[in-house]
């Protein structure tokens, strides 16, 4: 494989708070090849959104700061260059779709003006040209009667339509990497599927690479090539979609999968993951998942596991668990 389009190496993000320093992202590494879709999964507070914010230079300052690591895009380290320099890449190279489409659109401007502004500012388009392109884009993302709706305000659109507008803005300048931070969480289930289908379609059309952040394994399953699971700011498992789903190497991944209701097959009681995520303020030397883990043994309490190859497919599938082998082979939990 040649050089990846985007490579994140040992990214560490810390937040300074009154109560102390929180390591929200702890030595996270991943590569993203051109046209590839990586899904970052994890529950609230696992650091997946902070990773995205770090990539886009959106960390709230001065509280949050990148404490280490590199973000290499197309051969250059974004963190080593001044912010004014990397900002130019935003929109044209890296773009982002946010979780809540209502709060991500400026409520006081018409959507057409918001989309068109991109072309006017970044491409020097004229007013009428920008408007025409805005209508074209709105049409492309499946907004019916785009020519008529271009002059509507964000609050006049439904949630799904708003998210389409957001997607239109994100892909307007044809970025090479699209980061979608829980793009469907705020939407109805029926609309979720449509938006995911649209993202997949656009991705194929523009040959974009995509980082899809979600807490929903179901949403991810249809589009992702690779998945990466995060827990307490660290990567706990990473691998191809099938590898992770079939030979799960980490008890946390297993727990997540067990807590999804299966539509086919017998109706069984859902198995939740017991307990709650650890306090990031005082992480111990142990495995952060140890208190909630059914596989935990003595070593888990004393030694923090690093990412290690999972035996079934050691070349691409890795998990941070001392008992990855048992987890992978033990099909029925408990």
């Amino acid at each position: 494989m040649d050089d990846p389009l985007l490579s994140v190496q040992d990214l560490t993000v810390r937040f300074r708070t009154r109560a102390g320093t929180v390591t929200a992202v702890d030595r996270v590494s991943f590569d993203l090849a051109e046209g590839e879709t990586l899904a970052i999964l994890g529950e609230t507070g696992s650091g997946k959104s902070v990773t995205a914010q770090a990539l886009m230079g959106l960390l709230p300052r001065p509280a949050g700061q990148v404490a280490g690591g590199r973000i290499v895009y197309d051969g250059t380290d974004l963190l080593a260059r001044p912010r004014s320099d990397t900002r130019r890449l935003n929109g044209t190279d890296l773009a982002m779709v946010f979780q809540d489409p209502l709060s991500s659109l400026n409520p006081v401007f018409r959507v057409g003006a918001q989309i068109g502004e991109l072309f006017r500012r970044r491409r020097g388009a004229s007013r009428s040209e920008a408007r025409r392109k805005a209508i074209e884009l709105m049409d492309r993302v499946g907004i019916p009667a785009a020519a008529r709706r271009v002059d509507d305000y964000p609050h006049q659109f439904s949630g799904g339509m708003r998210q389409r507008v957001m997607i239109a803005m994100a892909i307007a300048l044809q970025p090479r990497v699209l980061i979608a931070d829980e793009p469907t969480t705020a939407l109805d289930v029926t609309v979720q599927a449509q938006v995911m289908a649209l993202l997949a379609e656009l991705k194929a059309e523009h040959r974009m690479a995509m980082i899809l952040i979600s807490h929903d394994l179901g949403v991810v399953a249809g589009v992702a090539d690779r998945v990466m699971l995060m827990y307490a700011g660290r990567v706990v498992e990473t691998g191809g979609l099938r590898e992770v789903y079939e030979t799960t190497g980490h008890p946390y991944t297993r727990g997540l999968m067990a807590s999804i209701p299966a539509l086919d097959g017998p109706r069984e009681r859902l198995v939740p993951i017991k307990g709650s995520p650890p306090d990031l303020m005082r992480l111990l030397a142990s495995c952060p998942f140890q208190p909630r883990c059914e596989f935990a043994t003595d070593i888990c309490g004393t030694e923090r596991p690093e990412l290690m190859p999972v035996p079934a497919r050691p070349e691409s599938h890795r998990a941070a668990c001392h008992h990855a082998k048992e987890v992978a082979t033990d099909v029925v939990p408990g």
Partner: protein
Amino acid sequence: MDRPTEQVLPRNDSKAADSPTPGDPPVAARTRVKIGRLRIIASLSVIALYVVAAVIGPILLKYDPVATDLGSRLKPPGTLLPSGHTAIFGTDQVGQDVLAQMLQGARVSITVGLATLVLAGVIGVAAGIAAGYFGGWLDTVLMRLADVQLTFPSILLAIFIASILGPSVVNVVIVLSISNWVTFARVTRSQVLGLKNRDFVDATRTLGARTWHLMTRSILPSMIAPILVVATVELGHVILAEASLSFLGLGTPASTPSWGTTIANGRDYLSNAWWISTIPGIGLAILVIGFGVLGDALRDRFDPRLRSM
């Protein structure tokens, strides 16, 4: 091809959203809305009346600041003057028509008020955005400066600066702007603090917007309403402050009479010619109250949290 099956909102839907159909709003709420509208209309009419009077009044009723007519000095309201016209509000100590003086004064007062507001507003909003957006030492410096200034009675500060600069219309505007930018800066800063981390600002940032663009195109348009409310309330204060300065002899020079100068001139004659000071005073009070009511009504209207109270 994926075709969205979502309901497309009809265009007039926003109107329907304004007045929720299931169950009409309680009568009390509707009355309150009506009263709110009435307050805006009433105060706006008062202000409009003053503006019209200031614009066309001096054209109809000539005022010459150096003319004197000692034969008809200190005449009470309604006197028919030898020159042939009725002095509706009476005449002052040199025989000038008080109404003509007031109309001329309205021009000065309203011009000074608006000019001050624009200057103070621009300075205050700029400082507020800079402080709120960048934070850190800039925020500390600007806001401590504002705090220091607030501990000073603003009229005292105005008197201090005015006595250094000397009386002229431009100086009055400068003096009043210096003592009024703080309100704008504080309101703006608090708005920016709330807005700068909103998703739509971040979203604009991810599309490559620079700081200047974010401040002027994303943040500023969203806080026009609160700034407008502050401006309305402040306008009344500024006109009053200008009158106070002129009353003290530190405002506009005698050749450009503002309400303050007229009131000051009549002070010595309060016992035998009450109208010289009183009528411009009442006129001033009504305008200031008009702006106050407008400001309150606008705030109630733009601030939904206050609506239920």
